């Protein structure tokens, strides 16, 4: 057993940290206040190589291993990049691009991946529906085969990048009589007649990511837009869970490190009762808890990444443990960080309130904490 990283991995993490601090972080608060997606930052992430970091170079990626990819995500959070942009990056790179890479034909890969890797195109993934969230297999969006086309009807809900995406990986029932085994995956491009996105939802947190419905009304797509095989869609969606529990959780790890630094700086500078509040044990207690949470979460995420690099099948129990722990425990420490800042913690002047709001998604998105408990109690 060895928890060390290679020199190259650590150097790359530092590069990402420097890049993010210079190119993204200075505009984060402004974009959050405006609930605006930072297109320029996203393109810069593409130029830097982050958007296709784990994809093969043939398709415009960097061919990085999973642990390196996780460290890059951690560096984004550690630099102070907001949860909205990292979520947009996650949905784009892992839920959309990775599925296209794994299950797309050579033509599909060549058409989409190079553009997704540079950020010229933005990708999204539509699985959830208004009446099928935790119980996704109850989805009602249908894809009916007519000759060399599929006709899609239905509505997807909560789709990250939905309003700004150029290409969507969409899950729909090709056999409505079945639950999981009736689901297939498709790729749908923006501008396809019958396909539209709803208006962006106004959200509590992750505001710089744009979220909306995807609406399909007699939307005809070529049969060649089927990804992989009919009936295997649920399987493909579940394969993204590995990314969900590693690369998508990684920015949370980083943002806890960032949060600890912010809180420590504030505690040293803010004077009450004639001394910096950091002298009070109750403040130290909060700092300690932030540190402990960050350290405890770390190995859970690295482990999933390392196992994926070893080619091991995902251990669903361990994946749910990571998601459940980070989802539930992150709330207490981000909440404490706001309290530690007192009144200013409640204002937009300091970014701890944004981190608190962004983190509130952790026990909901990608499978709620209750669903993780359901999985764990079934598998244990």
């Amino acid at each position: 057993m060895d928890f060390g990283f290679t020199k190259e991995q650590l150097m790359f993490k530092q590069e990402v940290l420097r890049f993010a601090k210079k190119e993204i972080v200075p505009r984060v608060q402004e974009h959050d206040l405006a609930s605006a997606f930072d297109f320029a930052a996203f393109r810069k992430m593409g130029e830097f190589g982050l958007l296709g970091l784990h994809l093969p170079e043939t398709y415009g990626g960097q061919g990085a291993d999973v642990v390196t990819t996780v460290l890059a995500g951690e560096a984004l959070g550690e630099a102070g990049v907001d949860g909205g942009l990292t979520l947009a990056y996650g949905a784009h790179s892992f839920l959309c691009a990775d599925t296209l890479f794994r299950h797309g034909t050579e033509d599909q890969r060549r058409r989409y991946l190079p553009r997704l890797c540079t950020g010229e195109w933005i990708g999204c993934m539509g699985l959830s529906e208004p009446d099928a969230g935790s119980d996704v297999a109850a989805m009602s969006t249908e894809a009916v085969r007519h000759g060399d086309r599929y006709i899609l009807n239905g509505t997807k809900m909560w789709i990250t990048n939905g309003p700004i995406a150029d290409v969507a990986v969409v899950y729909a029932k090709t056999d409505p009589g079945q639950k999981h085994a009736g689901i297939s995956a498709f790729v749908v491009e923006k501008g396809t007649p019958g396909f539209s996105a709803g208006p962006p939802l106004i959200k509590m947190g992750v505001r710089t990511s744009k979220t909306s419905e995807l609406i399909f009304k007699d939307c005809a797509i070529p049969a060649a837009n089927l990804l992989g095989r009919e009936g295997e869609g649920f399987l493909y969606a579940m394969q993204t869970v590995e990314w969900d529990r590693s690369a998508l959780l990684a920015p949370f790890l980083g943002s806890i490190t960032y949060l600890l630094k912010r809180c420590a700086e504030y505690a040293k500078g803010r004077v009450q009762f004639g001394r910096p509040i950091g002298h009070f044990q109750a403040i130290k207690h909060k700092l300690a808890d932030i540190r402990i949470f960050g350290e405890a979460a770390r190995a859970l995420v690295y482990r999933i990444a390392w196992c994926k690099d070893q080619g091991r099948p995902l251990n669903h129990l361990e994946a749910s443990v990571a998601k459940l722990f980070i989802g539930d425990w992150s709330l207490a420490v981000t909440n404490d960080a706001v309290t530690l800042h007192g009144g200013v913690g409640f204002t937009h002047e300091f970014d701890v309130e944004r981190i608190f709001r962004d983190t509130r998604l952790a026990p909901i998105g990608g499978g709620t904490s209750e669903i993780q408990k359901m999985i764990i109690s079934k598998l244990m």
Partner: protein
Amino acid sequence: MNFDFSETLKQWFAALVEAGKDLAGLLELEEADEKAAASGLRQGLARLAALGYLRVQTRQTDGDKNGVLALMGAMEQMAGCCPSLFLATEYSTRVFGRAVSAWGSAAQRTRWLDPLAEGVLVGAVALSEGAMNVENEPLATRGQRRGDKITIEGRKQSVVNAPAADVIAVAGSLEGEPALFLVPRAAAGLTVSPRRVTMGYAGVLIADLTLEACALAPDAVIAVPDMARMLDGLRFWENQVLVAAALGQMRMALDAARDHAKTHRSGGRPIIAYQEVGFKLAEMLTLHQTAQWLAYRAAWAAEAAPKEAQSLTLCAKIFATEAAERVCGSALQILSSTGYLKGHPAEVAYRAAKYGQIAGTSTEIARVRLGDEAMGWR
């Protein structure tokens, strides 16, 4: 990076579990009186010595088994089988033993560590005093040179193994310099109080010490480079033991609760089928696994990243010991009347769990330290 223990270590862990379970059944330490507890400890040590367990970190064994990470894995196994035997063994082997190993002379190491590794010697460490927490007060125990002898005066409280130990390392100072006095159990001037009855670890022999003109030969003194290092070192090793103890307690309680929830039926279904029970188990397992990985990472850091090791170990100690109390409490809830019976593994683990937060670096002091470190004040 590698998240697996080697095959050799896994086999060794399996052998330890087998021995640990045997010993738990055989010794019944949790119910033992003073005499039975003392002889049970000796029997346990003999069996563990044969497995090489007592050599780790004190007397070199083969490389694979000697690391702190391997030790954490091994201690976790033992702690989950037989809590009292585990604690008594570790204060002797890993706290007393490592102190002698780190700071003792070559002659002292040979004299004390060889029999310790063979399981024929029991050690103890006496650190805490009246206002026991050494964070707040300097140690009052003092030695003085008198001719060719050294005499010690002092009082120590709650010393694990004191009634059964062959030798007790008493922390104090010798004419202003930090020192560990190796006091044989039979030394004149040493009085050991009657056994203290504690809430948990009922099979561990704990007592207070009084040292009055207790005379020692000069070679019974370990001169320690500085007081802060000595205290940090002793606490660090103790903290590692307590982290492993917490992991063991959680495993005992979780296994018992899970097995019960799968087999005990209520309303026509196994109780795990009720979310109130199943979800509780999921939370327990999550705490256990998270604590486990944090403990392994802290143990790894002890060798690979020493700068981080102290604070990572404090993180692991706070998290694991608090998690243990929660997990054991939830286990008792799930086990209901079954678990509430005296001697049930979950009940034994629950009573032991609180100790981990009090002893070593207490949870409060550990948090203060971590807070100071975050602000660059340590």
